[in-house]
Each structure stands twice: as structure tokens, then as C-alpha cells.
């Protein structure tokens, strides 16, 4: 408990000031005039006068005694430590930037004195408290993929906690926000969010010898078949000599080596260069693009020589090549559906005349055009999203020689639908060809193979067919009922990875399984469908069609083409990364499956176990990683999603394939990078730190220097306080009156008035 005297608290400051001034003036007059008159008792007058003035002053001030319990509290200063991945970059001397940062934090803590130093980390979003005890640095978890100082400062400003009186930023200066182009006024505005000085401590002074892809920016969204302009910024720093850098853009594909999409030469000036590339991605969905440079020797950071970008490629319209061997009601129905679908751009070729037909007319009187088989299946094939071969015989029209190309097209991400008829499947000469390998069913290529079964039948739904989202709409419309078919192509067993959705009620395959009538399957990056009947049009024209207003046919093709094009509505599940994948750090995939309409249906559609298989896109010889998880009854509080933890992955492109429920598999391509944006530009940015400090009234420091920062003074806080008057007010007044009387008496004795 501290005790001290003070003047009464009811006096305003100006009154005290005026009283003191009057007292001083009175004393000055007293000393100046009376001390010169010694002969008339000047000493006594001065002495009593002084006492009188003091007593008057005491009567005005009425002193009090304060007994208080007080403590001195240091000013709150927040240290924002850069926790982005750029801190994992090495310094010269093999020390990491994070080690320099931690040393700087320790130094600041040591020199803080009475200042309350709170250490926060910043990266993505709001700042977060950091453990600063010895050895805590290793427990700080993964580094952030961004260094967003602005968000961290704004979060502090809006916090309900006590406001800091100063900020200290410890970083390499390579912020995402404020960016490199931020002006002084923008930095000042940033400082005004807290209105306190921001001191900065630079962890790094030297750039590593590094050539890198600094930024890849795309002009607009990626659309299949539409050229996408890419601007690639490259750089060289740290004394690395590079006048030009070759930049390549490649698409990582599951079916083979990366496909080179574009290449260019960047000319560097002042360590920076830009090259504009144009790439065309033919397949929709998540596609992995690798943008890389050929770095010169001496490059200390090879990890940032390539960037792996995930592009979600959209489609303006689905381009479908529809080839039919002859016009039939089935061909008519499919064509009308394709043409009526605004999202489909169809290119059709129908064989209207065979070698045995006699049209009885000159060629000029016919509207027939040559079937450009060579051009279609070589030059133009990649421009199509899907190819429909309907009742088409490969041999007479020269398609046989293009079947290897067509199979490669499917494995590279294209879609294939073979629709039945007298010229399809085995009868069309497709058995024992490369195309047969990408069909979801096997074809009998033996001499005694039977190509068609001409006994009328009604296809049967399989359990997989009932559960598959791609046929859910059709099932809703027709339930279990399907029209009777006049016959079917004879198909073999479903290939590994395929699924039969409809089967023949009586006919079986060689293995004894019911013969598939409608089957689907994944083939590399692409997908294929086998529909072994030519009577699907009866979903439109039949008694069943009349009862259902013909909606079943469109619903079936909506699902088939949608699934082929990986429309999320028709996938049995969906995969998404919970957060960007970073090499060496466990990631999570969120698996969703379609929400059921009823509780009963939900329990039926909810998978009990989920299997995810990861394959490297850029290293197909690497063994796949398989992860299996049980699905709890109510995962994550929702009913149709569960997170699957992945092991730490190396940097590269991956495809995750999900087998969740009875339905077909679904996949998602994604990329894992070592450094990502944070390593793209390895140069420190001391100037930005210096400018930030200058704009906000702070000071700039180097971590290697003395970190004696001028921090705010501590404040005293009173916890308990007792105020007691030294004497009652009347006593001070009486004392003043007595002193004045004594002084008056002395003056009268000396002859003064």
C-alpha cells in the first residue's frame, strides 16, 4: 500500500494554478519590499507573511492523504510473426528464415522489459496466438499458404480485446497483402486501422540464387476447346545469370506422359520477364497444368521452377460427334434429343446409302456428302467431348484404321457411347480392336461369336442401376418398367472398373453373370458407355412413353451424357480438397454423396465404407495410395459428407478416384506443391517493411541488428485506494485566519498598515 499527499479532488486544475500563482506573487512582493525595511521589523513581517500565504494556500487546497494499492503495467505490444511458407526458405548459411524469425522473437521478448509483448502469427486470415516458450517453434503446425498482413491487422482492430499500443512485424517482407505495388498512402491507411505505430523487423536481407515461375495468371475462366491466354512471370535473383528462360505449359494426364500445350521464351530485364502463352484444354473438369522453366545451373531452389495449377475447366457446350450407320427411329430419337438440348453442339454423320443401294439418280441429284472419316477421327477428334457410334459398322467406312486413335482419345479424357444395332459391337467388327479395350464390356472376338440375340426381352435393372445417380431421373419416371426390346447385341462381361446398370433377364455371359445391356466404365481419363439395344426410343414412342409423356428418353440421355461429361449431378459422389494440398503435409479430401430425399433412401444410399485411390498423374509408375474409411452414422453433423485424411504427399499432380456406393466411381484431379505462391518469389522485400514502418510512425530494424525498439511506457494501475483529509476544512480556514491575524499584528507593530 503506497501513501501520499495530494490536494483535494474537488478543486479544478485551473483554481489550483491560480492559487499557486497568487501565492508566488504575494511572496515575491513580500520579499522584495519588506526585506529592505529591516529597521522596522522586516524579518518578522516576511516570516509571518510567508506563513499566512502558506496557510491560505493550504485552506484552498485542503490536502488529503491517499493510501492506494498500485501496480505498474507495461504497454501492450503485439508482435506479428510471419508464419507463411516463405519462412521455410533457406537463408545464406543454410539457416531458414523461420529460424531467424524465432531468434528475433526471442530477442524482442528479452528486451521487452515491462512491456507486455503478445506474439501472434499471421498467414491466412486473422492473426493467431503463438506459443513462445522454448521449444514451441517446432509445434506450430503447418505454415500458411499466404502472408496476409492486412487481414491480421484488421482482425486486431476489430477485436474486443484491449487494443495494442504498438505493433511489431517480423517478416521477410514478401507479403501477399499489402502487395508489392502498395503505395505509401495505402500503407498509411493500413496503419490507421489500429492507429498505432507499426515497427518492422526484417528477417532476411539477401536473395537466394534462384530462378522461378513467379506468377501465372489466366485471362478469364478456362473453357474446354477455347484457347486460354496465360501470362507467365518469371524471374532470376541472387546473382543468377539468366537472360532468357524457356517456359513450357503441359497438361498432366492419367493416360500417359504430360501433353505439351504451349512453350515460349521469356526475355529477362532487371531479373524479371513475362511471356504470354495460349493453351487449349479439351477436357472439362479439374485439370492439372504444369508451368515450368528450364532453370540455369546454380539455381538454389529447384522447387519453384514449376507451378502446378488446377484449372476447373468449364464447357460452353458439349460437343458431340454423332455417327450413325443408318437412319432408324433410334437414330431419329437420339438426334432430336441432342438437337433439342441447348447445351449440346452436335456434329452428325449418318450413312444414308450403302454400296448395295441403288438410288436411281445421278450423284448431283443426291444430297449426300462424303463421309470424312479420316478428318473426323484424326484432325477434328480432339475437339469433341464425346463420340456416339450408333449402329455403325467400322469396316466399310474406313473407321477400323482409326480405332487406335479413338481408343487413345477416350483414355485421354474423351467420352464414348456405343449404341446397339445390327452393325454395333461384335457385328460392327469392334471385337479384338483397340476400341474394344476402352468399352466397359468385353466383346467376343472368336469365330463362333454370336453378335446379336433377336428374342424380344425387357431389360432388368441391376442394384447398381437403381443406385446410380445418372439413371435416378429415369427411375423416378418409369420406376422399374422398361419397354420391351426386339433384341440385343450380345455383350460380354463387364470390364474391371465398369458397372452394368441394365442386364438381360435370361441371357448370361461366359462367366455366368447376367449379360449387360447398359454398362458404364472409366477408361483412363475418359469414360465409355455401352448400350446394347436399338430400341431405347421406345421410352418415347410406346404406351410407356405416352404414360410418361416421353420424358424417360430424355432423362436417360441426360444422365448418360451428363455422367460421361462428369456433370456433378450424375456423379455417385463428389470429391474436394478441404484445403490446398501442400507437399509433405497431410491433406484432407471431403467426400460428398447425393442427398437422399427420404430418411429411408438416405440409409440405403449412405455408404458404409469409402475407398479413395490416389494415383500420380506425372509419375504413373508410382504405386497408388489407397485410403479407406468407415462412414459414421452422422458424419460431421451432416448426412452426406465425410472427410478422408490423406497421408503426406509428394509434390506433383494426383487423381483421386472414389468408390463410395454401389454406383460408378468418380474422380478428382488435384495438385500438391512444395511452396506454392509463397515460394514463387524467394526474394525478401525489405523496402516494403521500411515503407510500412515509415508510413505508420514506426521504425525499421534488421533482425541481425540490435532490436532495441522504442516501445510505449508502462502505465500505473490502481487496484485499491483510500482518501483521507489531512485536517478538516474549518481547521485550515482557522489556521489561515490566525496566520493572517499574526501577520497583520506584526505589520501594525512595525508601523505599517
Amino acid at each position, binding site marked *: 500500500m503506497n501513501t501520499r499527499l495530494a490536494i483535494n479532488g474537488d478543486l479544478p486544475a485551473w483554481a489550483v494554478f491560480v492559487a499557486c500563482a497568487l501565492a508566488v506573487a504575494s511572496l515575491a512582493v513580500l520579499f522584495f519590499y519588506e526585506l529592505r525595511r529591516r529597521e522596522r521589523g522586516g524579518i518578522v513581517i516576511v516570516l509571518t507573511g510567508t506563513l499566512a500565504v502558506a496557510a491560505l494556500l493550504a485552506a484552498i487546497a485542503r490536502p488529503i492523504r491517499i493510501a492506494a494499492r498500485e501496480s505498474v503495467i507495461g504497454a501492450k505490444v503485439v508482435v506479428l510473426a510471419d508464419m507463411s511458407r516463405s519462412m521455410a526458405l533457406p537463408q545464406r548459411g543454410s539457416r531458414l528464415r523461420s529460424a531467424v524469425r524465432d531468434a528475433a522473437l526471442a530477442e524482442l521478448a528479452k528486451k521487452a522489459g515491462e512491456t507486455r509483448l503478445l506474439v501472434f502469427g499471421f498467414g491466412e486470415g486473422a492473426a493467431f496466438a503463438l506459443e513462445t516458450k522454448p521449444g514451441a517453434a517446432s509445434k506450430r503446425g503447418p505454415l500458411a499458404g499466404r502472408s496476409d498482413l492486412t487481414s491480421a491487422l484488421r482482425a486486431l482492430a476489430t477485436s474486443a480485446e484491449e487494443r495494442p499500443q504498438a505493433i511489431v512485424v517480423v517478416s521477410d517482407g514478401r507479403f501477399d497483402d499489402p502487395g508489392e505495388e502498395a503505395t505509401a498512402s495505402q500503407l498509411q491507411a493500413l496503419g490507421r486501422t489500429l492507429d498505432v505505430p507499426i515497427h518492422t523487423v526484417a528477417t532476411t536481407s539477401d536473395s537466394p540464387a534462384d530462378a522461378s515461375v513467379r506468377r501465372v495468371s489466366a485471362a478469364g475462366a478456362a473453357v474446354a476447346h477455347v484457347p486460354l491466354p496465360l501470362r507467365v512471370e518469371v524471374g532470376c535473383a541472387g546473382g543468377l545469370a539468366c537472360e532468357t528462360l524457356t517456359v513450357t505449359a503441359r497438361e498432366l494426364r492419367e493416360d500417359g506422359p504430360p501433353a505439351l500445350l504451349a512453350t515460349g521464351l521469356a526475355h529477362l530485364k532487371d531479373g524479371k520477364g513475362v511471356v504470354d502463352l495460349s493453351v487449349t484444354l479439351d477436357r472439362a473438369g479439374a485439370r492439372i497444368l504444369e508451368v515450368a522453366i528450364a532453370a540455369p545451373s546454380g539455381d538454389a531452389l529447384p522447387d519453384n521452377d514449376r507451378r502446378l495449377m488446377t484449372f476447373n475447366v468449364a464447357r460452353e457446350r458439349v460437343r458431340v460427334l454423332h455417327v450413325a450407320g443408318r437412319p432408324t427411329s433410334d437414330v*431419329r430419337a437420339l438426334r432430336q434429343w441432342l438437337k433439342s438440348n441447348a447445351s449440346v453442339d452436335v456434329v452428325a454423320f449418318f450413312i444414308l446409302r450403302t454400296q448395295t443401294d441403288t438410288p436411281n439418280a445421278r450423284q448431283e441429284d443426291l*444430297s449426300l456428302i462424303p463421309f470424312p472419316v*479420316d478428318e473426323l477421327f484424326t484432325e477434328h477428334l480432339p475437339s469433341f467431348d464425346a463420340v456416339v457410334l450408333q449402329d455403325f459398322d467400322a469396316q466399310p467406312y474406313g473407321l477400323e484404321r482409326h480405332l487406335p486413335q479413338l481408343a487413345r482419345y477416350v483414355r485421354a479424357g474423351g467420352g464414348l457411347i456405343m449404341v446397339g444395332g445390327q452393325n454395333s459391337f461384335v457385328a460392327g467388327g469392334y471385337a479384338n480392336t483397340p476400341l474394344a479395350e476402352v468399352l466397359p464390356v468385353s466383346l467376343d472376338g472368336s469365330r463362333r461369336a454370336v453378335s446379336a440375340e433377336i428374342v424380344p426381352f425387357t431389360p432388368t435393372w441391376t442394384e447398381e442401376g437403381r443406385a446410380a445417380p445418372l439413371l435416378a431421373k429415369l427411375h423416378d419416371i418409369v420406376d422399374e418398367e422398361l419397354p420391351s426390346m*426386339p433384341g440385343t447385341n450380345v455383350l460380354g462381361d463387364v470390364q474391371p472398373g465398369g458397372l452394368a446398370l441394365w442386364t438381360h433377364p435370361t441371357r448370361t455371359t461366359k462367366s455366368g453373370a447376367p449379360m449387360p445391356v447398359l454398362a458404364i466404365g472409366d477408361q483412363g481419363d475418359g469414360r465409355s458407355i455401352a448400350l446394347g439395344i436399338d430400341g431405347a426410343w421406345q421410352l418415347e*414412342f410406346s404406351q410407356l412413353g*405416352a404414360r410418361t409423356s416421353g420424358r424417360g428418353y430424355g432423362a436417360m440421355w441426360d444422365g448418360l451424357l451428363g455422367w460421361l461429361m462428369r456433370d456433378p449431378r450424375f456423379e455417385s459422389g463428389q470429391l474436394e480438397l478441404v484445403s490446398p494440398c501442400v507437399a509433405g503435409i497431410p491433406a484432407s479430401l471431403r467426400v460428398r454423396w447425393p442427398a437422399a430425399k427420404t430418411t429411408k433412401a438416405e440409409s440405403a444410399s449412405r455408404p458404409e465404407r469409402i475407398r479413395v485411390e490416389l494415383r500420380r498423374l506425372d509419375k504413373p509408375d508410382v504405386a497408388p495410395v489407397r485410403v479407406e474409411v468407415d462412414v459414421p452414422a452422422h458424419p460431421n453433423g451432416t448426412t452426406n459428407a465425410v472427410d478422408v485424411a490423406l497421408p503426406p504427399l509428394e509434390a506433383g499432380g494426383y487423381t483421386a478416384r472414389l468408390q463410395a456406393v454401389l454406383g460408378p466411381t468418380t474422380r478428382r484431379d488435384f495438385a500438391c506443391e512444395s511452396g506454392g505462391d509463397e515460394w514463387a518469389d524467394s526474394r525478401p522485400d525489405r523496402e516494403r517493411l521500411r515503407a510500412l514502418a515509415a508510413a505508420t510512425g514506426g521504425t525499421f530494424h534488421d533482425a541481425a541488428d540490435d532490436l532495441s525498439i522504442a516501445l510505449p511506457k508502462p502505465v500505473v494501475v490502481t487496484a485499491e485506494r483510500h482518501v483521507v483529509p489531512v485536517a478538516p476544512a474549518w481547521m485550515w480556514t482557522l489556521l489561515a485566519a490566525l496566520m493572517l491575524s499574526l501577520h497583520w499584528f506584526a505589520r501594525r507593530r512595525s508601523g505599517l498598515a
Partner: protein
Amino acid sequence: MNRLADSLTRRKRLVGFAPAPAPSCGPPPALTRPKARRFAELCAMTAVFAGVALFASLALPRSARAFGDVGAFDPRVLIVGDVPGAARPSAAARWSWELIQRTSAPGRLTPTHVRADDPAVVDEPFLWLSGVNALASFTPKEISGLRTFFSLGGLLLVDDAGVSDDGTPSAFGRSAREQIARVLPETSPITLGPEHVIYKTFYLLRRAEGRVAGQKTLDAIVRSGQVQVLFSSHDLGGALARNSTTAVGSGGFSGSGAWENPVTPGGELQRERAIRLAVNIAMYTLSSNYKDDQVHAPFLMRRRALPSAP
């Protein structure tokens, strides 16, 4: 699409789907004797190769058989009211026969009949209504059946078999339009000019013709871009009708017999053009507006410029 069309137009080295002429094995009259011997040897070798090819084709697993007639063009005769059947009973089978002979499209050689009030009216996408006399008013069930048929996208050909030689519609033609107007009251027939796809689905035609030349165009009710009712005032069936045109066995067909009706005023050339129109209508039924695709445009425009021949 335009790029593809341009490319097709530009390039000459295309494998045409139209077949090369079959080699003839009769010695041409202009050949000399040694040349004739060599020609005979060539024919013999050709025959050997043909035999081997035939054997190979039999040995390969290509024993495809059509899945019946389902999906083939069926010129189904529509029966309404008390009309007993088609005005030209033999025309439907002849129509299918001509289609099969001339094109790759399959056709039913034994076409079917269906009543408008029969639920089976929706089993196929094509109906053919022809007659001479005025039609009685459609019953509500007939109207309902036809409306269902049209709602599914079906095509009805109304062929006036009683049209006069100068093209004046008969009582059937007039009454059929009135009754169809009751079925589809919200739409009216329009004229299909020679630019319509129906004149180029297989043959390039300049006008419509049947047993009579009549007006140059067809009328149609078009809904959602698709022809749903086609009105012919040319007695198309009259030009197609041929006696003894009957099915023989399973799949076989006899095309013998004589034409039942004279064609005026163009004679047999006009009949050929009428058959071509029928083939085009069948092709339109089976391939819809396929020939309207952009890829065909440059070819068809070039051929349109050539003089026509039957």
C-alpha cells in the same frame, strides 16, 4: 462447325461413303482379242478373290441380324372414323420397298394399320392418312390419341388421294385440314418452300409432286421446329401404288407388277420424282433435320446450282 465444313469443302482426298461403281465382268466392246483374254483372266482372279472374301466374311463373327422391324420406317396407315383403310392399299408397302432399295434406311415391307383411338397409335413416330371422301368428325378419343401422338413428336402425312388432275383438293383434303385443326387448334399450316430440309433429306428436289403435279409446295404444321403434320395435295400414294407389290417369305419382296395409276402430266419422270419425295419424307422421319446441319451446306449449295435430272 463452319471450320469443319470449310475443311471438308477444301479437301479432295476424302473417303467418300458413296460406293465406287461395282466392277463389271463383261468385256467392253472396244477391247481387242488379247486384251479380252487379259480381261477374262482379271475377271477370274477377281472371282477367286471375291470367293476368298466371301469365305472370310462368313468365317468372321459378323453374323448380325436386324432386331426385327422395330425402328424401321413404317408407313403406318392411320384409320379414323369409318374409313376402312388406306386409299391406295399397295402404296405403303411400295414406299418401304423403294426406301430399302434406294437408301440404307430400313423399312417395313408389311406396313401396319392403326386406329387413331387405339393406344398403339403412339407406338411409332409416323402415321399416314389418305383418302378420297370427306372425313367424318374425329371422335374425342381419336383427337386425344392424335394429340398424344403429336405431343411425343410424331409426324402425320395427310395425302389427298382424291385430288383432281389440276391440283384442286378433294373433299378429303379439305375435311382433313378441318379435322386436324381440331386436334391442333393452336397452330395453322404453313407452306414449305423448296428450301425446307424435306426437299433435301436424300434427294435434291425442287418441288413436290405425286400422281398429280399440283402445287409446287407442301403445307405443314410445324411445332418447335419440327414438322408434325405434312399436307400433300399430290396423291403421293397414287404415284407409289403398284399391284403385286407384296412381301414374299421373310424379308423377301417382289417388286413386280404394274403401276396402278397413271401420273399426270409428267408421266414416269414425274412418278420417279414422286417416289423421291416419298423417300425424302421417310428420311425426314428417320433422320429429322439432319441435312440442315451446317456441315452439309457447302455441298448442297453447289449441287443446287446444277441442272436437275430425274
